[in-house]
């Protein structure tokens, strides 16, 4: 219809920030544990619902967020310790198992919350729009953008400035060697899985406040996250950030310029990239 305005660029970036929060957890698990966790979207939705319940009961967005991250990490614990442990190292069995978890978890959420659309209530401070001489922009979306950047910095510090992070990074490259060095790799795996799940839960609350929560929201966010990780490359934090911006902007461009082909605009380039650079932009082969 017309070109990209500042508004649209901001929209693309705020959506990208949410995608980064969700996809960073996905890519950490994929990178270190080699597990494509297709239940990640369901974890996002579970986090959103828990956050909604906690935030409306206590009236605190912060408590809602903490509750969501905690609850989803707990679900992650059950998946990792209770299910994935039993399928060994077989990648395909792991992927398909998480697919089963997705179906089950989604249906349980439908039973618990019904099909109504919920919105996580945001604090008074973040409601409404900022107004720069007639240019309106929702405060909450700017908060999401800031949070996305903050999560990126925190994860970067964790991975690059701590011993745990060094172990995780080394594990992404070569898990066997780390294990041979006497490090308890299982515990690092578990920690990463819980961290990744908690990030999905965080995403659920953050996203649930402006994209709303409803059955099948999980599939949508999962497909976007997959695109982010595929473009960015497995296990790469920078890749997830670049991928999120690419998908966020492509999504906006698609909606504004090629409304007919909105879906194609994201997945066409992704399929091409994957065909010619199977490991993504920043992925490394093992």
């Amino acid at each position, binding site marked *: 219809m017309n070109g990209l305005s500042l508004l649209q660029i901001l929209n693309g970036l705020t959506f990208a920030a949410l995608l980064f929060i969700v996809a960073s957890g996905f890519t950490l698990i994929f990178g270190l544990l080699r597990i494509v966790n297709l239940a990640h979207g369901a974890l996002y939705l579970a986090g959103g619902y828990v956050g909604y319940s906690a935030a409306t009961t206590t009236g605190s967005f912060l408590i809602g967020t903490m509750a969501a991250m905690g609850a989803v990490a707990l679900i992650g614990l059950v998946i990792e310790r209770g299910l994935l442990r039993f399928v060994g190292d077989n990648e395909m069995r792991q992927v398909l*198992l998480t697919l*089963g978890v997705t*179906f089950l978890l989604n249906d349980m959420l439908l*039973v618990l919350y019904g099909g109504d659309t919920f919105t996580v209530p945001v604090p008074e401070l973040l409601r409404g729009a900022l107004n720069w001489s007639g240019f309106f922009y929702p405060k909450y979306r700017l908060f999401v953008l800031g949070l996305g950047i903050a999560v990126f910095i925190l994860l970067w510090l964790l991975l690059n400035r701590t011993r745990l992070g060094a172990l995780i990074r080394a594990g992404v490259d070569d898990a066997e060697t780390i294990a041979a060095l006497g490090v308890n790799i299982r515990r690092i795996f578990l920690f990463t899985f819980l961290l990744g799940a908690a990030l999905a839960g965080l995403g659920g609350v953050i996203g649930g406040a402006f994209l709303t929560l409803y059955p099948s929201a999980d599939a949508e966010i999962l497909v976007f996250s*997959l*695109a982010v990780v595929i473009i960015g490359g497995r296990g790469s934090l920078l890749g997830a950030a670049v991928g999120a911006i690419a998908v966020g902007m492509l999504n906006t461009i698609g909606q504004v310029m090629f409304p007919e082909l*909105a*879906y194609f605009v994201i997945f066409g380039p992704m399929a091409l990239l*994957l065909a010619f650079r199977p490991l993504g932009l920043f992925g490394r082969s093992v």
Partner: protein
Amino acid sequence: MTASLSSDSAAAAGDLSTSRVGKAATVSVLLGALVLAALPMVLPNYQVSVLTEVLIFAVLAMSIDMLAGYAGRTSLCHGAIFGTATYMTIWLAQDGSSIAVAMIAGVLMATMLAAVFGMLAIRTSGVYFLLLTLALGMVVWGICLRWTSVTGGENGLRGPGRPEFLNDHVSFYYVVFVCVALITLAMWRIVRSPFGLTMRGIRDSESRMQALGYNVPLHMFAAFTISGFFAGMAGALYAVFNNFVSPSAVALVLSVEGLLMTIVGGVGTLFGGFIGAAAIIALENVVSLYTERWQSVLGAVFIIIMIFAPDGVLGRLKDGFGKWTSRSSR
């Protein structure tokens, strides 16, 4: 780290060419065919149409198995290929083309799509192949949903109805039965051919086959296209069966259900597709009599199978049977 699903049992399945197991397999296949031919005489009308559906989905499951079991590639876009044939068939039929012409065009369209996807996908393997095919399937779904002027968008397309002589459930069943029997025979010949053996070689070790001078990408491409051709056949039959198509015919869920049927039946067993399709469709029909929670049941079945019986029902049976025969011959 194994990239394919339970390649051990698949290899075992490949080795049962001789002796007692081979004979037992032949007997059970013939017996199965006989049962399938006789069932409509005793079943009520509605069950006959469910059985028709089982046959059609068995073809889809077998086409997925051709890749998963014999080429070591797990696809999540076969539902989209299947549905493309369905769309093409209905789209032509509603404009007055004869049903046979429409079905042939549908299969051709699916094969062409599979060829394009094959070209993109052959460079990847393992989990990346799964992700790429998932993405390609999503593209097809997105197009079917949005290209309203051709696909009818969300509402889908309505077909003109079956030809007069196929309106009766039982006669339609027998037509499908004959088609599926021929398709199954063709697939079986392909997986047993030198080409099929080469594919299994590639599945077990790409680098070795490369070193032996085989053109691995070309073989992969051919396998993908052939498998898509069969998925298209199932899709064209489904078009006549359902007389209706909507984006859910190309949705990810269909690919997932097809894959689940393959797995339940046993990856690398080909005929397991029938068992898988029958098990899943029967389960769905029974479960929905008692509860709306079909999704939960489907998820639980997936989890249980992945944990306890990743080789599927037929794989399990064969394992047990193999052990039994080797013990008794000792």
